[in-house]
């Protein structure tokens, strides 16, 4: 049996090693490529040995492309996404768990449904709404017949218009409409003693004071974990920023990276520049994970000890 266990161990280690090579190999290649000049790659293709043009490639990235500005956009979108998601899902879960609400289970089921309908699936309808966030109001006016009444008196029906395409808000808000955070907080709140809220009320604390003095300090790790997760997800979003922002000034870094690839003009793409971009753009989420990794683990196991 012991021999058997050892051979399993060896097999597992081999599989693990292969996995690591598959994950780290491309990363390493990106790094080496980023350290050669364009001319070198034109001659030799991608190489496995590091060169000494990394600094130059990064400088070119900084002055010749819009990546810096797009990274600022990414930062705004990721931070906005993380902050808004945390606030919204914290408050939603608070209401769902600590108050007696009619239809609470229905509301929760609807929130859960959003997890099964990610933005990528809803991207066309989301685009339509973002192009005119008042279109639901228009539809309501049409449906209720109010608009035909209005057009009879004023000669024309009401058509309200407000587009949030190409704005930071427009990039953030559709990402926030997502139930994962609510689910996370709800599960955490359910592990707390039910009488905590009553005890706080007896002590004279109102619902807001309860959040501030008791619930928030207790949920610190959960909030941090959700913040990191939504920040990462906001930073790495591709489809929605691609659709929701059409000008290079508003695009995010991930979209900008893809745009570094020249459209089919037969030229060899500037791989060193792209790889330098990829390395720089990955640095922020890496930093985030390195700094807040312990919250990630603790917050996701949901128990505070």
């Amino acid at each position, binding site marked *: 049996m012991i021999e058997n266990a050892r051979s399993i161990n060896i097999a597992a280690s081999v599989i693990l090693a292969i996995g690591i090579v598959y994950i780290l190999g491309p990363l390493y290649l990106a790094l080496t490529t980023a350290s050669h000049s364009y001319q070198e790659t034109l001659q030799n293709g991608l190489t496995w040995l590091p060169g000494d043009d990394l600094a130059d490639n990064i400088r070119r990235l900084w002055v010749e492309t819009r990546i810096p500005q797009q990274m600022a956009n990414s930062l705004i979108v990721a931070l906005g996404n993380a902050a808004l998601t945390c606030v919204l899902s914290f408050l939603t879960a608070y209401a769902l768990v600590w108050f007696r609400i009619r239809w609470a289970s229905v509301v929760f089921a609807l929130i859960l449904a959003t997890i099964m309908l990610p933005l990528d699936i809803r991207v066309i309808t989301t685009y339509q709404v973002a192009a005119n966030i008042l279109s639901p109001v228009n539809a309501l006016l049409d449906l209720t017949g109010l608009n035909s009444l209005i057009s009879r008196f004023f000669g024309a029906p009401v058509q309200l218009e407000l587009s949030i395409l190409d704005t930071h808000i427009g990039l953030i808000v559709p990402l926030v409409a997502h139930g994962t955070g609510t689910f996370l907080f709800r599960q955490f709140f359910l592990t707390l*003693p039910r009488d905590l809220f*009553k*005890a706080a*009320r*007896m002590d*004279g604390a109102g619902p807001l*004071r309860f959040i501030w003095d008791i619930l928030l300090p*207790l949920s610190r790790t959960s909030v941090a974990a959700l913040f990191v997760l939504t920040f990462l997800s906001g930073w790495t979003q591709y489809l929605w920023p691609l659709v929701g922002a059409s000008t290079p000034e508003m695009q995010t870094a991930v979209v900008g990276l893809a745009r570094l690839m020249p459209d089919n003009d037969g030229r060899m793409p500037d791989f060193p520049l792209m790889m330098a971009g990829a390395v720089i753009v990955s640095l922020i989420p890496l930093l985030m994970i390195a700094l807040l990794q312990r919250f990630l683990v603790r917050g996701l196991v949901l128990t505070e000890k």
Partner: protein
Amino acid sequence: MNAIDPIHAEAQGIRLSGVTKSYDAKAVTIPPMDIEMRAGEFTVILGPSGCGKSTLLQMIAGLERVTGGTISIGGREVQDLEPKERGLAMVFQNYALYPHMTVAQNIGYSLRVAGIQRAERDARVKAVARMLGLADFLHRKPGQLSGGQRQRVAIGRAIIREPGVLLFDEPLSNLDAQLRQDMRLELAELHHRIGATSIFVTHDQVEAMTLADRILILNKGRVEQFDTPKTIYSRPASIFVAKFIGAPPMNILPVSGDGRALRFGNGKVFAASPLKGEFLLGIRPESIVLDRHGPIRAQLRHREDLGSHMILTAAFDLVDLRIALPFGSAEPQQSDLHLHFPRECLHLFDVEGRRIEADFHLEYAN
């Protein structure tokens, strides 16, 4: 120490008039209830699980709205006020301490919310902690305390605001037997010392008997009896009360009267009596006397020795009689028991289970 003294003067009476509660339209949890608790009194609410004890307590506390009726505390109607405006405090079953705060912060939280200065707060927290034997634990978190210590923190948190009324919802039920006994004594002493009107929910009859000035017995939201422990034991108002208080519970035997004699179900005459109709006769296990000349015969089936006393189970007239013998009394030698039911220990109930108070006339035939 002195921080706690003023409560004595401020204990307040509580009056419930026509208070009802329904959580939903279908079921009534508490039908209209009228009760009054005197200032400084220690009331224990006792009843089986789900009878509405916590509901009643939380309505008094202001954590649940009343569906109808009025509650007044110290002569002031409070049913529409927030808990903090009612001048009362509560101790919860699972302590409900704030896990991230130290003992001192837990005890002093209500003062912090009330905006009381740090210096005064600290002084009062210290006084309360000293009184409860918590002075050495002020900087610990609840997670680092034993069950008994946690319970004391919960009590400290309740009494620091010097409330006129203290509410307890099964505060001892999470403790082990020994600790429970100690805390019971401590609570009795505490009540004696601070004198706040106290309402204590439990389903432990020993707690009820030992702590209460008066016991309120609830059955499905209705008041079965509200009286002193002594009266509840000696003159239970219903079979429900009779069986709920006392361990093992009171023996209940069906009897019928024809105007001349009361007979057991097996037709044997029990006593001469002018009563007519069906009745239920009650006698406590500890009241039954083993007596060689006793008129009642039963077959011994089982004996349990509990050390302090022995419980015999005997078959009589299709029911099992329980008989409790004090330590040291002579044990029966054969299975044929001769029993005597002392006249003054008998309880008579009608078929609905209500006590027949009238001095019913019974005469044993000799």
